[in-house]
């Protein structure tokens, strides 16, 4: 019987630990935001008046179509990261968008309505210079691609190459630009720096060279930066040293005409490189003869080329941004000019005359916490009365896209900085004012009976008031139709919920913009753009004071470090409101090597941050007297480690009472053989509930729970597949003692590591078997604990028992993290981000080195699953169902107030937030709890007792009569 029951039981247990999403839970606690990255090229779909698409190609190698009404994605294609997926050019013609990808390696054409690929062809190798659409007799049929040494022409319809020609004298002439005016000719424009311009004219039909021009231009070095083709094939260049415009008719004389800028009555600001902006509305037609000349950071001239003469149509100053736009036959110029500190106005001007169009001004309110506008994309359209209307998309320095309609209504904004989140923290929300008031009552010292009573009464009154207010709101909302009820969350009504499930997500992005996001809805509650962030900055976000210390505001500190110089700055802010704190952070003149947040607190309850500079000097923040005194007292127990991966050195230091440091251990890993890839400690806020595991024979196997343990991953420098290897070193961070070393031969990175409790899980690529493998190391003290009350690294003579097991994983992974709960009672799951976009929740139970090869009675007793070499990916275990997350870079887990629930944020190109229940929701009623059943059963039982009571009475009576 027992044998029969046990498998049954196991089945139940297994099923119950396997969590999955129910279909009716979709969107209940989870949300996803999709991003595209910083926009590099953008085109409005102009083929139809009613079109709602804007195409964007971004620096994150993403090509997408956005809905201009809502800002949401129609479709998105995510290419490889790195230079091979880099988008070099975007050309649009009708329903097709042509992309040049990977330094001119691939040419792709997309169907923009459904977002499918038309064709993709491989181009010959060579560094990409420029591309343009080539039209002939009014229709565009080809695309020309100019490379360093060759020019090729391809059909738009199927991508096949029409012809390819080597460029003449490509060793000396630097061909930089390609142009076609729709007359059956393609011009390759090249320059010999500081000598002359070389132009080669090809016939579209067969690639024959029609003409070769060489013109002296000793002042020119870069064609795209200072030249443009204007009007009737007139190459126009501007030069800052001679303060002149140069014009060259590509069809006529081999000579440039010089027009001094003084004749146009303008001056170029000193040190400014002037540039030209021309506009070619249709590739089959010649460009407009009107063009912009930028003579200063915020000064543009609208010029017109008229029979070889240049006429100034209008001078725009101040005007930091201009753009041309065409609709139908009309071309307009949009000019942005600052209105005041926080707002700019955009006006439309007729391109032909330079006259301002009536009723076309639009106000763009700049976000005080954002960056300056950087680019202007204009969508022009004809209104019913044949006048020109327009909408603009403004791109700002902080990668934000804002789409504005006249007269200044913001239709949507996209915070594209969020496509590159570097680090994040989840901060508890503060209590509401009333809650804080109640808390305050208990916090303060008692001052007399009477005042205490009064205080109590007043707080009860406040509660009553809040309750009535709540009731009133309920009543009021109930009368309104459901769609009108808005529960918008703003900073003002933020408050902690019952189970602390709603938190503030503080996200730090690579562009230096900080965001505060409500974890429940995904709404951005605050944003703050930090200017002057170096492009290679490393960020470290720390929560110095949580919201638990009312009335002290919570405090976060962001350490921004320049990776090259090591110089760092601190940004201290309030994570709930995003405001910079009044606390002034210390100036850090020396490069910072390490930062550590101590559990010590100053009198204002802010944790102490220690910063170690390259002189091994330690500075504390905050550095009040109180802190320094505490530091002196506890200095003997403060240890830290430094990693120098360039020299392969790991070293441990001890803090001395005078805040200097002393090296106590050093481990050198020879850099010729291996390099340190990552070092992982344990999460500070991790709790382990049980000290050991109960075995099948009722004995206890105690876990080796060393909080100072570091998992160091190294990869071999030799990448040959036979000789490459990876090493996992488990080092005690205090003593430098190597607890364990695991070498995986014929393996290479990237290695993903999770280090928690008494286990380390890592994933690597096995070069021998060409597959991904997982390995788990678990450390145990044995059947007895050495010292069950305190763990000290200095007093642990016994080496822990090490168990290890490896598994095959059928997919590569992009990020990995373990779930985390309040008390650590709930079983753990590993959250694994897959390249397919799924986030797999794999029970840790499957990665257990004690899984037996043959199931025995005792292993069944322990609920160990028999060993199977391959771990299985089940789509039911995807916590994000079909809401795929592209390029997951990190997964952040945070405990909630409920032990069963762990909050998860996966970030990469997208952001996805959800809750997971690794052991199901054992502490709250499930949302499918059957109230009907329980109440009907209760009622039935109640009536049954009533009836049976009555029957019993009758029976008793009958018996008495007998």
């Amino acid at each position: 019987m027992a044998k029969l029951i046990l498998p049954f039981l196991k089945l139940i247990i297994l099923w119950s630990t396997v969590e999955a999403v129910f279909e009716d839970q979709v969107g209940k606690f989870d949300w996803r935001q999709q991003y595209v990255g910083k926009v590099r090229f953008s085109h409005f779909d102009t083929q139809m008046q009613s079109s709602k698409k804007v195409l964007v190609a971004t620096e994150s190698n993403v090509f997408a179509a956005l809905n201009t009404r809502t800002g949401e994605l129609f479709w998105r294609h995510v290419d490889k990261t790195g230079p091979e997926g880099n988008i070099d050019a975007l050309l649009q013609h009708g329903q097709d968008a042509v992309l040049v990808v990977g330094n001119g390696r691939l040419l792709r054409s997309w169907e923009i309505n459904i977002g499918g690929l038309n064709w993709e062809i491989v181009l010959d190798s060579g560094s990409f210079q420029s591309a343009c659409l080539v039209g002939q007799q009014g229709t565009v049929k080809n695309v020309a691609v100019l490379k360093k040494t060759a020019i090729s022409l391809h059909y738009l319809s199927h991508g096949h190459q029409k012809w390819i020609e080597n460029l003449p004298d490509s060793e000396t002439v630097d061909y930089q630009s390609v142009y076609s005016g729709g007359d059956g000719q393609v011009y390759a424009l090249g320059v010999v720096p500081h000598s002359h311009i070389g132009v080669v004219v090809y016939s579209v039909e067969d690639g024959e060279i029609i003409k070769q021009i060489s013109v002296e231009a000793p002042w020119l070095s870069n064609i795209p930066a200072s030249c443009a083709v204007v009007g009737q094939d007139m190459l126009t260049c501007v030069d800052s040293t001679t303060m002149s415009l140069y014009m060259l008719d590509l069809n006529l004389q081999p000579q440039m005409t010089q027009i001094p800028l003084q004749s146009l009555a303008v001056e170029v600001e000193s040190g400014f490189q002037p540039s030209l902006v021309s506009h070619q509305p249709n590739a089959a037609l010649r460009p407009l003869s009107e063009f912009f000349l930028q003579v200063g950071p915020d000064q543009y001239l609208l010029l017109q080329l008229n029979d070889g003469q240049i006429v100034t149509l209008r001078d725009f100053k101040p005007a930091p941004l201009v753009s041309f736009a065409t609709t139908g036959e009309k071309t307009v110029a949009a000019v942005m000019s600052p209105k005041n500190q926080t707002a700019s106005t955009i006006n439309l001007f007729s391109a032909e005359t330079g006259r301002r169009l009536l009723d076309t001004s639009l106000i763009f309110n700049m976000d005080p916490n954002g960056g300056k506008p950087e680019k202007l994309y204009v969508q022009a359209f004809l209104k019913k009365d044949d006048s020109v209307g327009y909408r603009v998309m403004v791109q700002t320095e902080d990668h934000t896209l804002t789409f504005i309609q006249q007269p200044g209504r913001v239709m949507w904004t996209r915070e594209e900085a969020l496509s590159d989140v570097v680090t994040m923290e989840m901060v508890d929300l503060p209590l509401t004012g009333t809650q804080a008031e109640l808390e305050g009552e208990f916090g303060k010292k008692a001052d007399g009976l009477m005042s205490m009573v009064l205080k109590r009464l007043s707080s009860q009154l406040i509660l009553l008031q809040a309750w009535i207010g709540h009731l009133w709101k309920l009543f009021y909302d109930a009368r309104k139709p459901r769609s009108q009820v808005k529960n918008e969350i703003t900073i003002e009504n933020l408050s902690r919920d019952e189970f602390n499930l709603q938190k503030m997500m503080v996200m730090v992005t690579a562009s230096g913009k900080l965001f505060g996001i409500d974890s429940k809805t995904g709404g951005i509650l605050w944003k703050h753009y930090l200017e002057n962030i170096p492009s290679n900055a490393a960020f470290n976000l720390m929560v110095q004071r949580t919201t638990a210390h009312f009335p002290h505001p919570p405090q976060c500190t962001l350490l921004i470090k320049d990776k090259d110089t090591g110089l760092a700055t601190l940004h201290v802010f309030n994570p709930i409101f995003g405001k910079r704190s009044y606390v002034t952070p210390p100036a850090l003149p020396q490069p910072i090597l390490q930062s550590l947040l101590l559990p010590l607190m100053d009198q204002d309850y802010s944790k102490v941050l220690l910063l170690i500079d390259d002189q091994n000097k330690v500075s504390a923040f905050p550095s009040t007297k109180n802190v320094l005194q505490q530091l002196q007292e506890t200095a003997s127990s403060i240890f830290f480690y430094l990693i120098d991966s360039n020299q392969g050195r790991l070293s441990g230091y001890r803090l001395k009472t005078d805040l200097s440091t002393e090296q106590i251990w050093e481990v050198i890993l020879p850099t010729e053989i291996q390099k340190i890839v990552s070092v992982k400690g344990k999460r500070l806020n991790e709790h382990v509930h049980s000290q050991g595991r109960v075995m099948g024979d009722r004995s206890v196997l105690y876990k080796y729970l060393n909080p100072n343990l570091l998992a160091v991953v190294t990869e071999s420098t030799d990448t040959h597949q036979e000789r490459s290897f990876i090493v996992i070193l488990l080092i005690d961070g205090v003593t430098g003692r190597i607890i364990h070393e695991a070498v995986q031969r014929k393996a290479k990175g990237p290695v993903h590591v999770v280090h928690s409790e008494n286990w380390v899980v890592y994933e690597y690529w096995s070069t021998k078997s060409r597959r991904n493998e997982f390995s788990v190391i678990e450390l145990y003290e044995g059947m007895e604990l050495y010292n069950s009350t305190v763990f000290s690294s200095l007093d642990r003579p016994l080496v822990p028992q090490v168990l290890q097991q490896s598994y095959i994983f059928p997919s590569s992974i992009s990020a990995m993290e373990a779930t985390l709960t309040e008390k650590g009672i709930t079983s753990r799951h590993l959250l694994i981000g897959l390249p397919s976009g799924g986030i797999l929740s794999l029970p840790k139970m499957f990665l257990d080195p004690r899984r037996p090869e043959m199931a025995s009675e005792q292993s069944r007793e322990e609920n160990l699953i028999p060993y199977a070499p391959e771990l299985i990916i089940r789509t039911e275990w995807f916590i994000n169902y079909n809401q795929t997350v592209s390029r997951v870079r990190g997964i952040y887990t945070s405990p909630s107030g409920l032990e069963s629930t762990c909050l998860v944020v996966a970030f990469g190109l997208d952001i996805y937030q959800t809750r997971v229940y690794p052991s199901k929701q054992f502490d709250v009623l499930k949302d499918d709890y059957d109230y009907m059943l329980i109440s009907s059963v209760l009622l039935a039982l109640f009536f049954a007792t009533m009836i049976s009571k009555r029957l019993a009475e009758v029976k008793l009576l009958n018996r008495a009569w007998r």
Partner: protein
Amino acid sequence: MLHMERISLLWCFGQAAFLLASCFSDMDGGPGAAAAPQAAGGGDRFKIEGRAVVPGVKTQDWVSTARVLVEGEEYVGFVRTDGTFAVNDVPPGSYVVEVVAPTFRFEPVRVDITSKGKMRARLVNHIKTSEVIRQAYPLQIRSSGPNTYFMKRETWGWTDFLMNPMVMMMVLPLLIIVLLPKVVNTNDPEMRKEMEQSMNMLNPNPELPDVSELMTKLFSGSKGSSKAGSSSKGTRPAAKRR
């Protein structure tokens, strides 16, 4: 679930052994398809081609969300509007090619490319990596249906309740306890001995209190009492266990 996994694994092994024998001759013929090399920066590069099909769904409804991943995200390709795809610039080697779409499931395929550009496709087998079960090349990847992401909610019904293993576990012993004494004469000493023996065999771990042990105790306890008494005694502890 555990059993199912094990069975499928066994099945896999069986199949592998069977097919391994049949594929040796295939090896000699060498990979069938060959591709023209695409010259690039270091060494030849090749193109992996194929077609993905979702039966019963128009291609335009799913191609915009689909991607072709070669060895994770090492090489990425996109699906054309007619369902065909090509991944360019892949150096010689062995790769797992996967078509990824959020709504549909596609089986991965391993593609081997020799340094001369000969291609072959085979089933992915992570356990026996050298095993060759040929697939068509250019790849023909058929979706095996929509991905199942959701669990079914348990709906309450009488049959579900009764077929629940927990309920079965409670009801069956109850039945046995009530019915068995009526069928078998427990007062017969030979019978009882036999029963005890069989119970001991079933229960190797004496420390574990379980149902069988409970039953033997019950039977020994009901020695002197009447049949009705034994049944009433039997139900009480069982009820407690609940």
